[in-house]
């Protein structure tokens, strides 16, 4: 158990490509931090720098207060789970899990106890004498986790551990990782490109793009107050709907005018806009699909293009008169069968949303007009 502190960490590859720019973050003891972002955003590189598998070009990484820049991975007291499991194919499951302990010259009886204990927690006791090739993907992933578990390391690193599993198994393993975290009670750094994993697992989420931190925050913070358009679109599935519109102020009240339909901005948001001295301007308006509803009358007229039946909800892909595509999430529980059947391609529907659920972004900088927190302002080490 330990804190991890990254100060101005930079990664420049030999071909001068900068993979990570001035990465500042303090991960507190026993915290579960998730790095999330699209491919090539530098999340895995950052994790590998913490692990010691990549050199750090600039800046420092501290684990438990000790600068580890020049320490070998074996001297950093970390455990890591790899995306492709990286099990040793010539060893049995038992030997795979026992490998690190044997290197530490731990007595065999202690190894036996630790390995069987880990196997029991992960439900792989029956496979201890098998070779990895005789295991399924999920079982292999458990072995990889077991191998990391027995080390009792200060920091537990996971590099997209679930991305090779099928959707069902991924959900199951995700829940198991949450349980594992409770049992191990140690510091976790988890890398994923899947925002659902990030939202469900992380105490805090670090959203990255092109080597820069876009936002650091709790799942609620990044969902409810995305710092910029990138975060807004990346977090949440289906992604946030974006509309170009104008913000106008009439008296104390603010209005937006998407697709010619005037909608009043919620009082609280209006007050926040007023406190920032914003009176009227062009804005990029963001509304999440779950916050849009079908209107019986009024609202924005649209045409339904695709209706995806997801079970508990419908994902309606509609386009407005000017061709802007909008996704609407409609819970099936509130729909009559006849209403549901009427939602076919080509059907005219009206959509609306409340003034409470709007997000306003600067069309030029793409920053959230109501978000004060920028990545650089992230107070290192403070709650």
């Amino acid at each position, binding site marked *: 158990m330990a804190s991890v502190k990254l100060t101005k960490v930079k990664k420049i590859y*030999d071909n001068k490509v900068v993979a990570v720019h001035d990465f500042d973050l303090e991960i507190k003891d026993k915290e579960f931090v998730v790095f999330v972002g699209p491919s090539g955003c530098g999340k895995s590189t950052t994790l590998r720098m913490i*692990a*010691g*598998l990549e050199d750090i070009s600039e800046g420092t990484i501290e684990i438990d207060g000790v600068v580890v820049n020049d320490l*070998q*991975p*074996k001297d950093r007291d*970390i*455990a*890591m789970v*790899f*995306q*492709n499991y*990286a*099990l*040793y*194919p*010539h060893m049995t499951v038992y030997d795979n899990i026992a*490998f*690190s302990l044997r*290197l*530490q010259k731990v007595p065999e009886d202690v190894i036996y106890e630790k390995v069987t204990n880990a196997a029991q927690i992960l439900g792989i006791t029956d496979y201890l004498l098998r070779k990895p090739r005789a295991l399924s993907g999920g079982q292999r992933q458990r072995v990889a986790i077991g*191998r990391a578990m027995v*080390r009792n390391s200060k920091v537990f*690193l996971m590099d997209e551990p679930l991305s090779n599993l099928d959707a069902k198994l991924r959900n199951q393993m995700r829940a198991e990782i949450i349980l594992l975290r409770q049992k191990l009670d140690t510091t976790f750094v988890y890398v994923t490109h899947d925002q659902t994993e990030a939202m469900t697992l992380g105490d805090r989420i670090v959203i990255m793009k092109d080597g820069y931190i876009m936002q650091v925050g709790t799942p609620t913070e990044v969902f409810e107050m995305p710092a910029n358009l990138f975060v807004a679109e990346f977090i949440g599935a289906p992604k946030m709907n974006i509309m170009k519109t104008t913000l106008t102020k009439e008296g104390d009240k603010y209005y937006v005018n998407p697709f010619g339909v005037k909608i009043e901005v919620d009082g609280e948001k209006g007050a926040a806009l007023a406190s920032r001295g914003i009176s009227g301007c062009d804005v990029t308006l963001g509304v999440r699909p779950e916050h849009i509803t079908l209107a019986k009358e009024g609202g924005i007229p649209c045409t339904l293009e695709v209706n995806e039946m997801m079970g508990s909800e419908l994902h309606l892909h509609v386009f407005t008169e000017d061709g802007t595509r909008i996704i609407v999430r409609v819970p099936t529980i509130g729909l009559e069968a006849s209403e549901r059947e009427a939602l076919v391609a080509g059907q005219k529907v009206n959509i609306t949303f409340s003034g409470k659920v709007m997000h306003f972004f600067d069309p030029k900088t793409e920053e959230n007009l109501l978000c004060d927190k920028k990545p650089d302002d992230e107070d290192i080490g403070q709650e």
Partner: protein
Amino acid sequence: MNKAVTKEEKAMRRHMGLRATRAISNTVIHILLIVISIVWLIPFIFITLQSFRIENAMPVGYVIPHQWGIDNYINLFKSDFPKWYLNTFIVAVVTALIQTIIVLCMSYTLSRFRFKMRKPLMRFMLILGMFPGMLTMIILYRVLADIGLTQANAVPGLILVYVASSGMGYYVSKGFFDTIPKSLDEAARVDGASRAQVLTRIILPLSKPIVIYTILTAFMAPWGDFVFARYVSFGTSSGMNVAVGMYNWLNNDMITTRYTMFCAGGVIVAIPVAILFMCLQKYYVEGVTGGAVKG
């Protein structure tokens, strides 16, 4: 209906035709392979039969001995042969051992480490390897003579020469190592292994075929070497290897008394190599093809 049957019949005939063609081509290939095997085996059978011929020791125009016995083998061990055999064995084993270690370390380094001049170094070694080894013979002899590793001291001299350039034989094993995922190295390093432990505990156990291939090729070259061994031993019997020593028996003045002994020596020399290959054949084939195909 009739038309359908005809179609079926046609398909069946075609199928039978294909089967027959395949059977014929298989038979031809097998006959060809058997003929090649026989041609290949003739010298071995000939030399083995001659080694048991005791009616006289000179070369003769027939294959099957008139009188059989093991006198040639007994005489062989009364000559300098055991000394030459030991020399060859020591040179081959020590060379195989050292060369294998160097080749595997070199291959691992070139496969896993990224350092400046890595690629130029590999290209340089490739070009260097294109020059025939014979070119260096005179200067190597001069150097060995200067440090006293020729003639009676030929064994350490030969080991030195064989081992010196072993790093250049990294291609096959590097190709094989390249196919082992790097994440295994990384996992082991995070698990607490040093680079050396990664090589010995992870990479080498996964590369058995290539390790065996490296050992075998490293053993075979000095075991059968003649040209350089002859130069370095330079007429001193105690420094000769089997190939050089036995070659002298084929001189005009010795061939009439030593020819069958030469054949017996040939059989003895082939035995360890044959045993080695028989035991390790599976790995050897995997090694030869493994590195190339996967790399």
